[in-house]
């Protein structure tokens, strides 16, 4: 498969990039690492007039520790994050998630922003032009039907990014810039929960930084992902968990995030009532089970990925349980704080 033709832009400053983005809007797509968009270009799922590469833009890469946060530049590669001792010691879930993306050769190029802002996927949508056109246009390509759920009124494509659940769990913030202004939003607010357009960024907005807050006191996080193969796979179900202890040793905050659970990562509120206010040592298996079954209800699965939806729903519960247990285990370990 060849790439479609496009004009190539390679600015060197953020200012220039934003100017080009606001000038070309819908005609332009941004290429950070290029591992995701290249495949979609080859499948003609997107045919922009302009491709803007961020490879030469200064000031978008690197991991820096500040007073109360760790800042990851948008075009920092996943290998850099996976190899970072700083990330591994403070944010286990983010480190693990970046280590589980695709394969080493892809992680050497793929960036954190690219992984975060990837399109949602569906077996009927992510295929080459000929079979896709044979089926007729679905909601995702501007049509009026859904092949996965016949007669449905919306798109059920699945967001399968690895980093988003891990980042949302640890409470990461994203800095989004456009010409003349910027805004800082929690990572979960980057997603619209709409299958047709899962990313809530305007065409003139550029994600420039991700800020991970360093929490005081003891905390722990974990990420679990299910794939059929060991590598080069999107998750069929994934879960990230973050636990925070207060001074007295009680768990005061629990964040459970499900990935591959619908058009955006799901952050079920109140799922962890059974765990809140308890010491990690006192959390029983039944408490974990209760939290898991409440959280897994947020999973929205239809038959549009490699495995049947009924099986993926059960997988979501298993992944949540494993992640929760892993996080509890590391809180129980004396002196461990991540």
């Amino acid at each position, binding site marked *: 498969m060849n790439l479609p033709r496009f004009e*190539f832009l390679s600015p060197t400053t953020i200012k220039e990039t934003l100017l*080009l983005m606001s000038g070309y809007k819908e*005609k332009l797509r941004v290429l950070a690492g290029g591992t995701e968009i290249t495949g979609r270009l*080859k499948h003609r799922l997107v045919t922009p007039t302009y491709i803007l590469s961020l*490879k030469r833009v200064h000031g978008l890469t690197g991991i820096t520790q500040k007073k109360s946060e760790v800042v990851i530049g948008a075009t920092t590669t996943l290998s850099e994050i996976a190899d970072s001792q700083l990330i591994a010691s403070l944010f286990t879930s983010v480190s693990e998630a970046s280590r589980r993306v*695709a394969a*080493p*050769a892809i992680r050497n190029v793929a960036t954190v922003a690219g992984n975060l802002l990837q399109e949602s996927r569906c077996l009927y949508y992510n295929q080459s032009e000929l079979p896709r056109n044979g089926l007729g246009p679905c909601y995702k390509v501007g049509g009026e039907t859904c092949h996965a759920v016949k007669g449905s009124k919306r798109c059920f494509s699945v967001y399968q990014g690895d980093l988003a659940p891990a980042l949302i769990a640890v409470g990461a913030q994203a800095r989004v810039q456009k010409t003349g202004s910027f805004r800082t939003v929690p990572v979960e607010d980057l997603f619209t929960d709409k299958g047709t357009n899962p990313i809530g960024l305007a065409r003139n907005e550029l994600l420039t930084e991700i800020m991970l807050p360093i929490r005081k006191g003891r905390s722990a996080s974990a990420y679990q992902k299910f794939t059929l193969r060991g590598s080069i796979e999107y998750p069929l179900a994934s879960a990230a968990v973050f636990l925070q202890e207060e001074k007295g040793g009680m768990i005061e905050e629990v964040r459970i995030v499900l990935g591959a659970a619908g058009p955006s990562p799901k952050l079920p509120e109140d799922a962890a009532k059974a765990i809140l206010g308890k010491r990690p040592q006192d959390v029983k298996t039944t408490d974990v089970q209760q939290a898991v079954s409440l959280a897994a209800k947020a999973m929205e699965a239809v038959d549009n990925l490699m495995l049947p939806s009924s099986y993926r729903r059960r997988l979501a519960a298993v992944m949540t349980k494993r992640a929760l247990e892993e996080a509890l285990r590391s809180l129980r370990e004396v002196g461990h704080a991540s």
Partner: protein
Amino acid sequence: MQARRKPAPQKQATRATKRISKQPAKRTAKQALKKAITIEKKRVTLHINKEDYELFIYPHRTLGEVLRDELHLTGTKQSCNEGACGTCTVLLDGAPVRSCLLLAVDVEGKEITTIEGLADNGKLHPIQEAFVEHYAIQCGFCTPGMILTAKALLDKNPHPTEEEIRNAISGNICRCTGYSKIVEAIKAASERGR
């Protein structure tokens, strides 16, 4: 293909972006419409296997296509063409990458190593020798990618464990399923102190 000796400073790419950056956004969108009709070839200088190649290529050509079709460096294979199989692996500044997912115009200034760049004056690289000695080649299609991935691993970590080797080649598919021999060969190459 047009290969010349020394590149002139790159003018075209900067001219396009500079002109747009000076003008207000409204006018650039109009220019976009006009320019879309005539997409021009770009002049790039690729640094491959310690040699400079100056090329005129369309921006939509991938590095893998340019290596094979323009420069006839056909040691780099193309198979799935969407980043899943690893046969098109080349080294970019020493790290393995998929050449089917990279735009050739986007890797200017980087050091590219293909399988052709490993042998030294006809003498095989120790990893290549180890692959031959340990029968780590069946049909041979995944071999260039495997050897380059192994080289990147051993450059970074001269004495990897079996798990580290398996993890490093986890993105390279051998459809003959000869993984055991490949792991053995990489291990042998590492034990030999490369």
